């Protein structure tokens, strides 16, 4: 920008001199270094999500209710979910080789990075409750996606209610 400005100054001066006369203005030759946008793309692929869960494995036999919903901007557990969380806590404590990933999510309201933090806070609230029941911290992993992975992409209260959640995902043994 500075280089450009100084070139501009020189040209401007010579132009003004020319303009004072009656000859049509002809600009000086200026070789400004204009560069276009160069982009070298990167593609990520080969991410494998699809691992079938053996119904007789720890993951396969785990309690079936695996989604906990939250109030707007809150990470406190609603009373109706205490029972479900207790079932998971008991199950993981009884199966110490079982591993669960707690995925925290929010609705789309508010900023994306703040929602990442809010989603983590929700996941960690559940992690703490599970640990109180004797689940080891090594069995649990919290990850927050914030508002990035909505269940329902609509922009209304009904969608938001579904999106404010923690998914309890049992990891398949010998995979991680």
């Amino acid at each position: 920008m500075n280089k450009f400005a100084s070139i501009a100054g020189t040209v401007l001066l010579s132009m003004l001199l020319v303009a004072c006369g009656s000859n049509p203005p002809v600009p000086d030759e200026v070789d400004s270094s204009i560069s276009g946008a160069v982009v070298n793309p990167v593609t990520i692929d080969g991410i494998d999500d699809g691992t079938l869960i053996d119904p007789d494995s720890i993951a396969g036999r785990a309690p079936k209710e695996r989604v906990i919903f939250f109030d707007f901007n809150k990470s406190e557990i609603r009373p109706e979910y205490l029972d479900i969380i207790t079932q998971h806590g008991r199950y993981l404590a009884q199966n110490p080789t079982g591993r669960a990933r707690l995925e925290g999510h929010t609705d789309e309201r508010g900023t994306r990075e703040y929602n990442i933090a809010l989603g983590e806070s929700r996941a960690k609230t559940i992690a703490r409750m599970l640990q109180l029941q004797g689940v080891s911290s090594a069995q649990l992993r919290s990850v927050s996606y914030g508002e990035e992975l909505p269940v329902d992409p609509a922009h209304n209260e009904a969608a938001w209610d579904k999106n404010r959640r923690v998914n309890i995902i049992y990891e398949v043994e010998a995979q991680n």
Partner: protein
Amino acid sequence: MFNTRKAKPASKVAAMLLGFVGLWLVGISSVHAVIEIEITQGGESAIPIAIVPFGWSSSGSGSPPEDVAAIVSADLQRSGNFSPLNREDLIANPISGDIPRYGSWRLAGVEFLLIGSLQKSSTDYSVEFQLFDVSQQKLLTGFNFKVTDQTLRNAAHQIADEVYEEVLGIPGAFNTQIAFVSVEGSAREKSYKLQLADADGQNPQAMLTSPRPILSPSWAPDGIRIAYVSFENRNRSAIYVQDRQQGSRKKVISKEGINGAPSWSPDGKRLAVTLSYEGNPDIYVLNVDNGQTRRITTSPAIDTEAVWADDDTLIFTSDRSGGPQLYEVSSSGGRANRITFEGNYNASATVSSDGKNIAFVHGSDVGYQIGALDRESGLFLTLTDGALDESPSFAPNGQMVIYATEKAGRETLGAVSLDGSIAQSLSLDTGGVREPAWSPFTN
């Protein structure tokens, strides 16, 4: 960067209302997705200017590859500060070398006249322009560029930058770029792209494509490196720095918990980031070369979204007082001071390059809008009227803020002037666009 020479006296600025809602498509020649730009609100004191189609000469036959005058005209019109005369209303078509008939142009109601020529040689093009002040009957500035097919549009944007600066005394930001994240595909199979486009929405190119979320792009001051958050590893997020020209990328941090909200320091050596591996989300400063981190905040609340106000100062979001508010802290740590008090949700700050203004997401009963705060006077202004506006990012000349918004159920981008008087929207025809980040000046 800021320069107020020749600031235009208000009396000289013709009070012309841009009473139109213009919609046009750009990118017809692009093989990629098309970005539509719509001016939703024009400036009320736009300066009338005549932009004459550039002369064209070529050793062979054929028409010019780009309509340079049209690109300049669209840039200046989009800024809201200029009102280019319609082509059919031009009283003459002078080109470089012609002496303007000042009296006639003055009668046509224009204050400035831009003419030029484009010449094709065997391998490249030569483009020149002259800008005249009609009432003072004098040449203000003129240039000659050597360009290629690939850089002809950049030259046109640079001409628009020159006109803008010459008339308004503020550098133009037309020859810059926007980074943004696009999302396409079904809920089951999504494609996230980190894209770069020219500031007029043209020439969008994906620099990263991933099946998993990408967020929070941040430009290094060199305009070449971009930091962002990627969820490509499903168990843990990571912050990457990618060189857009080389296509090389480096994972700079991936701790347990959150790895988020990267923001480049003005010296291009450090990133402010949000990490939660020590318990809860706090602000850290990461040395990009050696990977060392320094913890800046230690509150038990959520601290995130740090940006640099200058080399030694960070502005970040914290809910330590209840709801999210903006705070200021030294980039070496210490006591943080709250700087927003309007309403109970203020987050995700962007700072103008002169440090005088900040824009941020302001939540209230009517939703989330972009607010701006003048640091000196303390004046607070709501700039937008969407319900879900977020991710504000200042243009490098501090005149506009680009942000993400939602329109008719679709994710689009909006841009608004700092006084809220000029607004435009950008949308992608193939999917949602979000998280815009305006590049620094790249010349």
